[in-house]
């Protein structure tokens, strides 16, 4: 899986680095000063690297916890995100990560304890008010868990923080570390889901919808609060038929009392990232659709976007209560 392991000198002997080295014994190990030497050079091609990404082990020094974008919320007033990892093992064509970084290599920050401290400090700043933390912003929360062990490490921190909620956003079926511990009411496991046809066409290297639903059901049965993320909704001529059938299929598996939240948003992306992605994947059908640029964002033409949101919202509200549905819109 990992053919090259770059390790910063500062964390070369770190126990997590040593454990990961043992896991990838066959990998070529290359020491570096700072991860940016490998991750940031200009003359790189994300698409070529995505064929065989390397893993970079690094130390993060600051900005462990950051305010979440306004549209990134599931009902809380205080929303933050953190990224123990940059980049994702999946290859979803609509993901902004495909246009954000020059490199497709994965960066894993191994100083987890510094994240814990920052989470605790941020939570304390808000007194007793509820604070939401999103972990699946610059990576999938669970996909590399067997290697990183980050979630296994960090859940005990949240278990002690009554007024902190963590969202694990994932397309992964790596749920064993969750099933091995007691469910936590303040940990929402949110599955990103798309209709099978779209998943097959656009979400490369991800588990199929049926497997994700299986994982979801297991967690739901074990008592974990479940989130559903229908974001991005993708336009195609038959989107109504696809999404209508898909929502029905998903909600057949959902116990509404276990459902924490559902979020819904149509495909949208900052203009700069979009231009990078189109250069990398000019032959991608997704980008040949009825997209328009507006206010530094690219999304579907406004009337179409409104129509898609309205249709999906209406369809979902036949299956779930309105108070659990959150619409993600970049102009929020």
């Amino acid at each position: 899986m990992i053919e090259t392991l770059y390790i910063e000198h500062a964390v070369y002997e770190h126990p997590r680095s040593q454990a990961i080295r043992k896991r990838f014994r066959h990998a070529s190990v290359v020491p570096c000063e700072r991860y940016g030497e490998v991750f940031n050079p200009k003359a790189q091609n994300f698409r070529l690297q995505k064929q065989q990404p390397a893993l970079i082990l690094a130390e993060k020094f600051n900005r462990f916890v950051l305010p979440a974008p306004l549209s990134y919320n599931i009902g809380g007033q205080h929303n933050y995100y953190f990224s123990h990892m940059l980049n994702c093992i999946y290859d979803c064509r609509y993901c902004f990560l495909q246009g954000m970084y020059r490199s497709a290599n994965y960066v894993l920050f191994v100083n987890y304890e510094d994240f814990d401290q920052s989470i605790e400090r941020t939570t304390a700043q808000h007194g007793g008010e509820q604070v939401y933390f999103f972990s699946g912003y610059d990576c999938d929360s669970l996909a590399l868990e067997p290697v990183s062990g980050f979630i296994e490490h960090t859940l005990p921190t949240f278990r002690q923080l009554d007024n902190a909620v963590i969202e694990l956003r994932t397309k992964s079926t790596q749920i064993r570390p969750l099933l091995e511990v007691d469910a936590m009411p303040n940990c929402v496991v949110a599955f990103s889901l798309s209709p099978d046809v779209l998943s097959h066409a656009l979400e490369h290297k991800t588990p199929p919808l049926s497997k994700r639903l299986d994982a979801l059901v297991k967690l739901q049965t074990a008592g974990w609060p479940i989130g559903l993320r229908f974001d991005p909704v993708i336009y195609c001529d038959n989107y109504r038929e696809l999404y209508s059938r898909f929502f029905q299929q998903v909600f057949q598996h959902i116990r509404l009392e276990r459902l924490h939240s559902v979020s819904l948003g149509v495909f949208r992306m900052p203009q700069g990232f979009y231009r990078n992605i189109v250069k990398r994947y000019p032959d991608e059908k997704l980008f040949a659709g009825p997209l328009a640029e507006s206010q530094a964002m690219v999304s579907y033409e406004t009337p179409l976007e409104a129509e898609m949101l309205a249709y999906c919202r209406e369809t979902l509200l036949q299956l779930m209560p309105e108070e659990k549905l959150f619409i993600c819109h970049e102009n929020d």
Partner: protein
Amino acid sequence: MIHIVTALPCEAKPLIRHYRLNGRQAENGFRIYENSDMRLIVSGIGKIAAAAACAYLQGQTTDRQHAWLNVGVGGHRSLPIGELLLANKITDAGNHVSWYPPLVFKAPCPRLALRSVDSPDTEYRDDCVYEMEAAGFYATACRFSSMEIVQVCKIISDNRAHPADKVTPPRVDAIITARLDMIDALIQALNTQQALLAQQTAPAALNLFMEKWRFSVSQQHQLQRLLQRWQARNGETADPQMFAAAHNGKAVIKQLQQQIEQHPLRFDDAS
């Protein structure tokens, strides 16, 4: 097209023979050998010479994003003579700047760090290959191509048991000849990656349209993107004959836009 840089004629000879490269007449300062798929330049010793050779070779063509490979010999304290290694890190011993060639294909040989030194090093203090060109080659070739298709391979010619002053041109020729199968595998892999990269550049139909109509620079960008969208939605390239009635570039762009919007957009097999 792959560009190969070697420092010495004796490093180049096995490749010239194997790939049947023809020498060009009367070059200014560098000897270049080529066939339809490959250009090889003999740079001379040292990183400045290697950098100059890369720039000279690139100047021979208007195309960008060629694959590049630096082939040569180097020393290591203990590795056996004749072992071929692909660089996973290149450090300029003069200024300590490092480059990390990304590996996006299965390496046909082991990988190791290289150190580009300014004069021959016979102490072999660290576990790396000591050589004299890679830093100049890599820094320069990466100005013209993406790092994934710029690679350096070195064959061990000397070690503590077999010092560098005993290395002769026939010996270099022999050890490179013995590794031509691995070098060839590397070249094939680089060609494959270069072809993948080419898919990210202008669509094939662009030139056909530009030969038939005049487009301003801004219209050329529009046209390029429209032809990509056409191909993405139709699964085939646009045929200029379909727009034969258009009087100018502006009309072609308008018709392309209209027709793309009329194409069905589905992600299942019915598309």
